[in-house]
């Protein structure tokens, strides 16, 4: 195909493929654990990380990962409050982390002035041109490490997700697992934000998993399906972004949302009540 004559498109496709697999795998657990809000926050936190890295003149990739992992640890570490219920207090912590991190991003943009504010749109909404061959290697290395760690904890994590009380009684360290999962989710968010832009990482984390879990209730099948949908979404979005003036993040969220709507529609169609046939026979 003509678009592969350009090195930056080849790199974008390589990086996109790596990111789709990683985001799909972590996103599947995220949706199952109902931690969409945490996932979204970890994605947004990458923005001040990247802005700070540019400000300090160090590698942007380091900024993305450092910020996302730090935020994951903060969310996991803050103790639950006395007054509210556990879920309510956790959501306040996540909201605070998110807002403060983005405020730091705003401060850096304003301190750094013109150059960074031109870059801000790219950091927020993604750019096809930004990916170098060495960056692809870094993405690949981090993705392999994160997926290996996920494979190591997948079974107890699934147990702890489906039935935390029984898992805890059986000696599974639920709290430690959930902290480790947040760190891995942070890694996936940091990887994906380099392609899709910080604001739209969440599309890749939540939409394929949400669509797959609507299509089938079988865990292993929906896990594989999630990664397949994520891959198709990224490949299609990159193609559409290449041939249009709109940013890749927009196409990604639109293709992903289309998949989600189709899956929801298919589910509604197969689940539809069929009392008509029964009434005819009686």
């Amino acid at each position: 195909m003509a678009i592969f004559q350009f090195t930056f498109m080849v790199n974008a496709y390589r990086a996109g493929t790596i990111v789709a697999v990683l985001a799909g795998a972590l996103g599947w657990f995220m949706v199952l654990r109902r931690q969409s809000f945490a996932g979204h926050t970890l994605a947004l936190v990458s923005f001040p990380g990247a802005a700070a890295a540019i400000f300090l003149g160090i590698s942007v990739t380091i900024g993305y990962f450092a910020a996302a992992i730090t935020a994951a640890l903060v969310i996991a570490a803050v103790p639950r409050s006395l007054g509210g219920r556990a879920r309510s207090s956790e959501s306040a912590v996540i909201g605070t982390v998110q807002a403060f991190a983005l405020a730091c991003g705003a401060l850096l943009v304003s301190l750094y002035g013109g150059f960074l504010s031109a870059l801000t749109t790219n950091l927020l909404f993604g750019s096809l041109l930004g990916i170098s061959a060495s960056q692809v290697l870094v993405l690949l290395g981090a993705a392999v490490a994160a997926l290996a760690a996920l494979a190591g904890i997948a079974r107890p994590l699934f147990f702890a997700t489906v039935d935390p009380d029984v898992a805890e009684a059986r000696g599974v360290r639920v709290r430690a697992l959930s902290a480790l999962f947040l760190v891995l989710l942070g890694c996936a968010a940091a990887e994906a934000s380099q392609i899709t832009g910080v604001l739209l990482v969440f599309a890749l984390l939540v939409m394929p998993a949400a669509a797959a879990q609507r299509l089938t209730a079988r865990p292993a099948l929906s896990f594989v399906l999630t990664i397949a949908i994520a891959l198709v979404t990224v490949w299609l979005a990159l193609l559409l972004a290449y041939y249009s003036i709109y940013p890749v993040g927009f196409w990604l969220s639109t293709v992903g949302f289309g998949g989600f709507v189709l899956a929801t529609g298919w589910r509604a169609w197969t689940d539809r009540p069929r009392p008509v046939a029964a009434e005819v026979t009686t």
Partner: protein
Amino acid sequence: MISFASTFGEPFVRYAFIAGTVIAASSGLVGYFVVLRSQVFTGDALSHVAFTGALAALAAGASLLLGLYGACLLVALAIAALGRHGQADDTVIGSVFAWVLGLGAVFLTIYTTSATGGVAGISVLFGTIFGLSASQAAVDAAITAAVCAAMILIARPLLFASLDPAVARSRGVPVRALEYAFLGLVGVTAAAAAQAVGALLLLGLLATPAGTAQRLTARPFRAFWLSAGIAIASVWAGLLIAEAAPTVPPSFAILAVATSSYAAATAVTAVHRRSARAAA
């Protein structure tokens, strides 16, 4: 050293203080229930809708306020309608708002290529409270004052409905109608707060003061008022800091104050708990 008289002499500072105070009060009051009902994610979704609404209005050449309030109110009511048992599915909210945000990216592209407005996107995202005009400040202050009044009016039945919806329903509290009213108020507050601290940062006004108040006291109404108080104090302190140090954007200063108060409250309650455990 800045003197109060000279600070309040500038009209744009006065507008920022007046609108900021009422917006903070409504964010604190609404935010208490947002946190209590674990609906911070809904607030997060609305903050992104605010961005798309504002940029859609700019791209279409319509009024920014109309886009903000219209989009936020519409999506808030849609979330209320989609919700089963009062709380919409996380993944549905997430998928919808991620796509709405994608649309925002397109409006940004259209707007920045049609006009010389590259900065507009960033100022919508991160707020320009010192940029409020007299008429904008008046509109925002009036709307958020109405939100405060409505919130105080429904606080008691809403508290009942939030803590125990089943019992509240059997006692004749209109739980479903309260949910619509509440989410509508969240939408309006989000649109107003988006102008004060920016679409991306409004969770800092909505969730942080309420989370702080909830850590400091377990009594609902005390936390309700405390939340508004902390929000107003954060906005005042933030505006004074931004006034004294012009390189610091006001949104950052406001959120830094709010976040420090949250961190301080967390530390204080942790120490308390430890000393209580040691005494026991």
